[in-house]
């Protein structure tokens, strides 16, 4: 685990905790103009973005996954890219390709759709593993290598991938090891009847996404991510996270990896900041654990799935 309390970098672009908290509230309110309900999911996506994480939305089609990604991208005034994964999609279709320019007689790099601030990888499980891994490598390293040349991805870089839960025989399930690279796996689910009625009312005419205005800019988000990264995580909290991970390792076939623990604490940091605190409390960890940990766990025979294991862990692991 890296030092959870890095030395404070003095920079003009650093924002106060309360500023970031306000910003998040504003952001979420803005997104709520498009996305009806699902406040918790929106909040999770925002905190994942601030915690330098990527999100996997696991859902049936048509519940607003794309709309969520788009509205966030619009709200922060960042470049939104979308990759529709299909069985014939090639890795270079994701990363980009060197093209021979007849005029300059040189190869020129044509950046792929991955070069965006908010990248929506739609139905990622429909593409073959090779193509999937192109995106996943980009997520992990925040850079892309094409024909030996390494190119940095823009900052911020957040992937919101969606996974189609139906049609299982025509999909390539994400390998367990690569699932680990998503900070959170979320479910949108169907809206409540009330919410759906509201949604219909809003979208029946002009779609609100068209008129959505940004509430902040790219630089502010970068600064906010800095603030989150500096949020204090004291030893008792770190130990608590370790105990939770330890519990999953003891009670499942495959437990949470150290990468998972790091992700958990990063998410908790973002959560603490959105609550206006510059320190993480166990509650932050608890809130994030239910979305950060389950997809990293391969449940044993006794537990139904990873979520059950995490539930048990939260119920049994001592906080202090």
């Amino acid at each position, binding site marked *: 685990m890296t030092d959870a309390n890095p030395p404070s970098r003095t920079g003009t672009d650093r924002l106060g905790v309360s500023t970031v908290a306000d910003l998040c509230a504003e952001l979420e309110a803005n997104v709520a103009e498009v996305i009806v309900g699902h406040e918790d999911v929106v909040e999770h996506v925002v905190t994942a973005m601030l915690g330098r994480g990527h999100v996997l939305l696991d859902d049936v089609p048509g519940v607003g996954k794309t709309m969520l990604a788009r509205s966030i991208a619009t709200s922060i005034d960042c470049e939104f890219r979308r990759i529709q994964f299909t069985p014939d999609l090639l890795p270079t279709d994701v990363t980009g390709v060197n093209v021979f320019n007849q005029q300059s007689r040189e190869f020129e790099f044509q950046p792929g759709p991955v070069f965006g601030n908010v990248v929506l990888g739609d139905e990622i499980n429909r593409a073959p593993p090779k193509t999937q891994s192109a995106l996943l490598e980009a997520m992990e390293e925040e850079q892309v290598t094409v024909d030996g040349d390494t190119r940095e991805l823009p900052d911020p870089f957040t992937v919101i991938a969606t996974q189609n839960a139906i049609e299982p025989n025509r999909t390539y399930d994400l390998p367990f090891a690569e699932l680990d690279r998503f900070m959170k796996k979320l479910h949108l689910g169907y809206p409540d009847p009330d919410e759906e009625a509201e949604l219909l009312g809003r979208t029946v005419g002009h779609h609100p996404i068209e008129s959505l205005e940004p509430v902040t800019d790219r630089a502010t988000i970068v600064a906010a991510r800095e603030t989150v990264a500096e949020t204090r995580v004291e030893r008792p909290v770190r130990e608590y996270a370790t105990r939770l991970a330890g519990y999953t390792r003891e009670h499942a076939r495959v437990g949470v990896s150290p990468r998972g623990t790091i992700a958990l604490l990063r998410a908790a940091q973002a959560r603490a900041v959105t609550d206006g605190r510059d*320190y993480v409390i166990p509650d932050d960890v*608890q809130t994030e654990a239910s979305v950060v940990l389950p997809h990293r766990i391969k449940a044993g025979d006794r537990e139904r799935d990873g979520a059950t294991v995490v539930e048990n862990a939260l*119920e049994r692991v001592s906080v202090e």
Partner: protein
Amino acid sequence: MSTKSDSQTSDRTIEIATDGSVGPGTFRLLACCCVLVLTASYVSVLRDVTRVVGGTETLLTLVGAMLVAATVLAWAIRPRTATVAAVVAGALGFAYYLEYTGLGVEVLLSAGDVLLSDAAALATGLPLLRMVEAGVWTLAFVPAPVFLSWYLAVRGRYALGVVPGGIALLFLVLTGDAGTIPTLVGTLAGIGAVGCGELERRGGSVAQADLLAALFALIVVLSLTVTVIPGGSGTPGHFAGTEAGTLEGTIDHASDRSRIGGSVDLSPEVRFTVEADQASYWRTGVYDRFAGDEWVRTGDRSDYSGPIGGPPGETERVRQLVTAETTLGVMPAAPQPVSVDGEFTQHTRVSSHGQIHPNNPLVEGDTYAVESAVIDPGAAALQGAGTDYPDPIAERYLQTPEDTSNEFEARTAEITADADTPYEKAVAIEDYLRSTKGYSLEVDRPTGNVAEAFLLEMDEGYCVYFATTMAQMLRAEDVPTRYVTGYTSGQQVDDDEYVVRGTDAHAWVEVYFPGHGWVAFEPTPSGPRDSAHNEQVERAREDGAEDVDTDSSEDVPLSEEEPEDEPSETPSEIVGNNESEDWNDSDPDTGYGPDNETDGNDSSPEPEPVEPAANDSSVTDEEDDDGWLAALVERLSISREAATVALVALTGLVASVHRTGAVGRLRRTVGLYWQRRSDDPDRDAERAYRRLERLLAVSHRPRERSESARGYLEALAEESDEGVDPRAETVLERYERAVYGGGVDREGADESMAIVDELARERLPGRGQRGN
């Protein structure tokens, strides 16, 4: 069986290998020590026996050998084999005992019921010392329990190992040989062994031994206080022991053991009257075994059935008619009683020494006739009696305690240096004691061997001391002697009538002369004794005590002999008292008379107020005068025993307090209402929250381990109707900042503490319930 034992073996080996760790190793050691202590407790009781009758060395060697054997064989043989071996060893021991006593092993077949009844007699309170062959019995008894208990202890079967030791100790308790302390120590050791064994087996920690400590303390305090309570069967003599405080009590209650006490008083009451042709010492008890501080009568009594065998030599028959004037537990008779007449015959029992004893105490007015064969050999005859003692006599009447010092023997040899025959030796010792030791009833009982102390250190004593010392000295010179108790002839009121009072209680010595039998010797200087005793009677008469005289005894002088040349402490007193006798007879009702009458010549001031005398007019004058101060000091100063008991009780209290966790609870309760401010605001803020949590635990529910502080408060707010005090939020926030954040400042911490103080006080009775 074999596989089971094998697996146990391997278990045990593993445990030994892990002995380096503190816990089980320590308990193992403790448990083994406890078993050893238990063993020591009953061996010490047996050693007390062998110290008297001899064989201590053999006993200890035997115990040592058994311990070594058990250690060596612990892993070589199986428990069943060991048990069988122990039983066989025990059986062989008893066979040896039977052979030794001349009964032969075949008696097992012919008289098994007799043996059984013997065992029953022992188990129902026959002390070991009263057995004729106590030493052999002891040696036969000891190996089996020692071996078996140590064998089991070495094997780690502590609880089982306590059983044989416990049975041995229990048996000795039943025989009455094991005193309070060995019993207590043995019991505690047994419990300790079981407890430590359990703690070892279950991997307990030292902190868990507190229950054991509390239990120990409880047992010690209970058992010791039970015996300290007056009226309990405690150590007589400490607490108004009316029996042991009188010479009679010491000398004779027809008991089988005669303890030698300290200062004694004499009751002037008339005990019995004798009608006999000639005066004699009236013997009531015979003792043969000396244990250093007591005389023990070995052997059993049998019912009187026909004439008792008399002395071998020439005897004169003396017929006596004895009438009890009070309740009498003895049957006084001139030695050697041979036949008893009258209706009391059926209640008469005969000791192995030929002394008669009543089965039930005689009551006032009971009468019996007894015929004695009195021997009166001349000095010349005794001179020529020789030393050809029969074996039974030599075996039984030459016993001295094992620890008798060489000095005692050397001094005896010195005193009897010129004496050639046993008779001369006896006379020399008699003369020596009479001439060098003073007579006094005020004696501090020496510790250890009384005979030795009296010969070598003490200057004065009373008949018990004289007789004991003489008997032991002669035994040291290989002359068979025995210690006898009884009464002197008493006040002769008629030609053939003697009135015997409590003051006449006496002890003297009988020496065995082949061809003649037992001959009485009197080592006590008679003059000082008589005067001291008569004085008691006179004083009692003055005080108007009842039962001092019979109808016929009042007018007759107590004794023909006048005080001789004794170094008696208050000769003038005796003179005065004697003079007052006439007056006393004329007006027995007035207690103040003597002062008027004897003003002139009674040099002793004697300011003692004449109180309505207690029955037992044995108030010690010295104590009455200035004794109250000493008594007070004595009462205030705490004896060592009491201090020990208090200490043990305290330890037990501490242990039980520790056990119940009362200290922690008290501290927590106090801590709920009051928090000390520390230098560290973070710590204060954290502790303030902890207090809040405990308050909430009482008013709502405790926090679960998996609940975070915030989650707990939120859950409480949701669960309960009245919710949680909003100020709790502040405390929580400060706590989080202190523990997880950058810390809190002093004011923040103080505010937290103040809030919790307030919340706690609101809970106090009288301040009203918060929220209601």
